[in-house]
């Protein structure tokens, strides 16, 4: 197997999953976003989004906080520094792969 192809096996599988990749990409562009915004942007069901966020939270990529904006209760999601680093290195790996094979 070619080295370029083999590099695919080293990808962060937690981020590589399409729904989680979209969640992490959205969170990487903002300081924080609430559950409702993520649900609308990703088109996932509440259960699915919760499950994906839990997985990301368990590995320390995402922080989930319950807070208030005025009187409005919010579940706010924040990409941690670890999460940002993981996403950045995932992007680099994908770019390298595409450059070498494309």
């Amino acid at each position: 197997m070619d080295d370029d192809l083999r590099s695919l096996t080293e990808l962060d599988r937690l981020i590589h999953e399409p729904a989680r990749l979209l969640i992490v990409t959205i969170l990487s562009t903002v300081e924080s976003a609430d559950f409702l915004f993520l649900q609308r942007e990703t088109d996932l069901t509440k259960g699915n989004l919760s499950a994906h966020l839990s997985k990301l939270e368990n590995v320390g990529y995402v922080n989930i906080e319950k807070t208030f904006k005025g009187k409005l209760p919010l579940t706010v999601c924040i990409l941690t520094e670890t999460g940002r680093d993981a996403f950045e290195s995932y992007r680099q790996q994908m770019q390298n792969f595409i450059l070498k094979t494309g």
Partner: protein
Amino acid sequence: MENHDVKQVEQRVKRYWYSDGIAELASGGMFVLLGLYFWIQVIFGEGSLISVFLQVILVLVMIAGFIGVHWLVNTLKARLTYPRTGYVEYRVDDREVRRRRWIIVAAAVIVSGMASVFEAYIRELDSMILIIGLLAGIIFIALRGRSSGLKRFYALGGLAILLGIALSLSPLSQITDLALFFGLLGVVIVTSGILVLRQYLKENPTPVENNDG
């Protein structure tokens, strides 16, 4: 995920800030107030006591305006937008802030230079309103339009430039030009904001269930 995909997601998230028209309502309102401010000076005459008083408090009016706009945008978004389509806190990207500052400074230098060249050839030209019009247009097109990808900001930018050029060539006094420029542009921006807000509220009715995930 490639860079252009990330850029698309980034642009979509930025566009969300303008999806409800509230930012336009507030900034357009600020323009209308500025128009009124200059119009009062047109009515009472530039040397009148009330005009001198208004000129003295201009900085205070501007600061109060910015604080008021900030409060209004946050309050309206908390009441109308966040319960319907969710809350986002944007990142303050230092590189992006620096880039925007450079764009504004470069545009100001280029536009001022162009205006003084034109002024040498066209005697009736009001260079100040031309500079303001071109700068407002560039800010709308290069900063708001490009970052969000929304066409209505290109239209507003084009309108600001046309209005600036038309008023700079008009025989009216500078203070009347300023009143008309801010007043008219403000009314158009507020109208655009109202239409966008109406559409947004139609597409996103009040949620009946608790949004909290």
